[in-house]
């Protein structure tokens, strides 16, 4: 698989480490009263869809950026690659 890195252009997926469902960006608030339940869900349960999946790839053997890759788990086709930083900021995760 070739991942079209937004900054570096097309890179071999072997340079990356796969870090799972991009919903892991939505880390629950540990101070919420139901934090035990929300963290169980966050840490252990997955949608695991057959079809389009947004997922985190870490460019470990490259520029060490984190990407959100939209990839089809039935065909391995990649339709979109974003910087995880941009995705997280757009969701209001950090300043």
């Amino acid at each position, binding site marked *: 698989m070739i991942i079209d890195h937004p900054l570096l252009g097309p890179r071999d997926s072997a340079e990356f480490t796969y870090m799972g469902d991009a919903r892991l960006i939505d880390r629950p608030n540990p101070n919420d009263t139901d934090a035990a339940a929300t963290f169980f869900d966050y840490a252990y349960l997955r949608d695991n869809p057959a079809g389009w999946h947004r997922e985190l790839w870490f460019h470990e053997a490259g520029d060490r950026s984190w990407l959100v890759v939209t990839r089809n*788990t039935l065909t391995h086709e990649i339709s979109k690659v974003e910087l995880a930083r941009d995705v997280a900021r757009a969701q209001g995760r950090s300043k």
Partner: protein
Amino acid sequence: MRYSGFRVIKEALSGHKGWTPAWRDPEPAEHYDIVIIGGGGHGLATAHYLAKEFGQSRIAVIEKGWIGGGNVGRNTTIVRSNYLLDGNEPFYEMSLKLWEGLEQDLNYNAMVSQRGILNLIHSDGQRDAFTRRGNAMILNGADADMLSTADIKKRYPFLNTDDARFPIKGGLAQHRGGTVRHDAVAWGYARSADSRGVDIIQNCEVTGFRIENGVCKGVETSRGFIGAGKVGCAVAGNSSRLMSKANMRLPIESHVLQAFVSEGLKPVLPGVITFGAGHFYCSQSDKGGLVFGGDIDGYNSYAQRGNLPVVEDVCEGAMAIFPMLGRARLLRMWGGIMDMSMDGSPIIDKTHIDGLFFNGGWCYGGFKATPASGMSFAHLLAKGEPHPNATAYRFDRFEKGLMIDEKGMGNQPNLH
């Protein structure tokens, strides 16, 4: 029809005209006491033990394709019980004991071959870890044998024990481990279950569950509704997909695992060998092909085919330990979809929906578990409580912090 050597000779002399199909092709009934979804090894074994050991009747196994077309027909056929943790080892040792009596139980030649498995040791730390594992195995009634480099040289003279890049320092052997012909396992269980009245319904996909007031009443299929007193799901790599129809999210990711087989060669490899300095394992089939594999590809996939980086990694492992493999031509390579759980161990449990039961999360090691999984799932379905050797395989172990994490990797499915 009973199979025997005598029968083979009789049929040979009469032009093989007396053989009958090994199982029927029935139309689905309107209602069953128990419906098993998934005609892989685990589903078929469950049906066999339900009928034979637990006296259940009116059972159906529903398979979307043909039986044996899933992982049971795609794996590298290795069976062993060399686990470390208490939640696992008694279960896998029960499985190995069931393998030992399987062919007599099923009256079917599944080519169970206890040719032994050898895990190579390349460092002092690895020797400590394997010694501990061997002791855990012995404590649970399994066999384990620490071999010296000289022992290994005697058994496998072609291994480089002198100046290899990753020196061989010894090995942990389980002589009762070995290989079993994978599709014969599906066929043998299917034939035995069918002969006890189980309906095996192929080309029938389960598309949903009928759940009323928290009770599962049956399954919607591509061939219409089938009512059921109890429904057991055993669909391996498709677990999340199927259970999402009951609005369940599982502690599972689906990943692709590849395997490879070389052209047929004269016997060179009497047992199963695993390389300890990389991920590579190999055995030789009775047809002569060297059957080998390594790591999963590492990303979510339902594609049943993998990519080149892992092929390269497996071949590097092969060349490090068996340079002779570089001269053999590759005959075939393929992939299967693994139900990788969050701690690398399986789940055999009730769900929160009455009458709906789940068996899955087998990762890349569920073939060896087939008999014990079938026995335990049948026990749970028939009696409503877990088999004594499968009490740890609960859904709520993640919530309660009771993970069974053999490798100590945490909730990262692609590292198990």
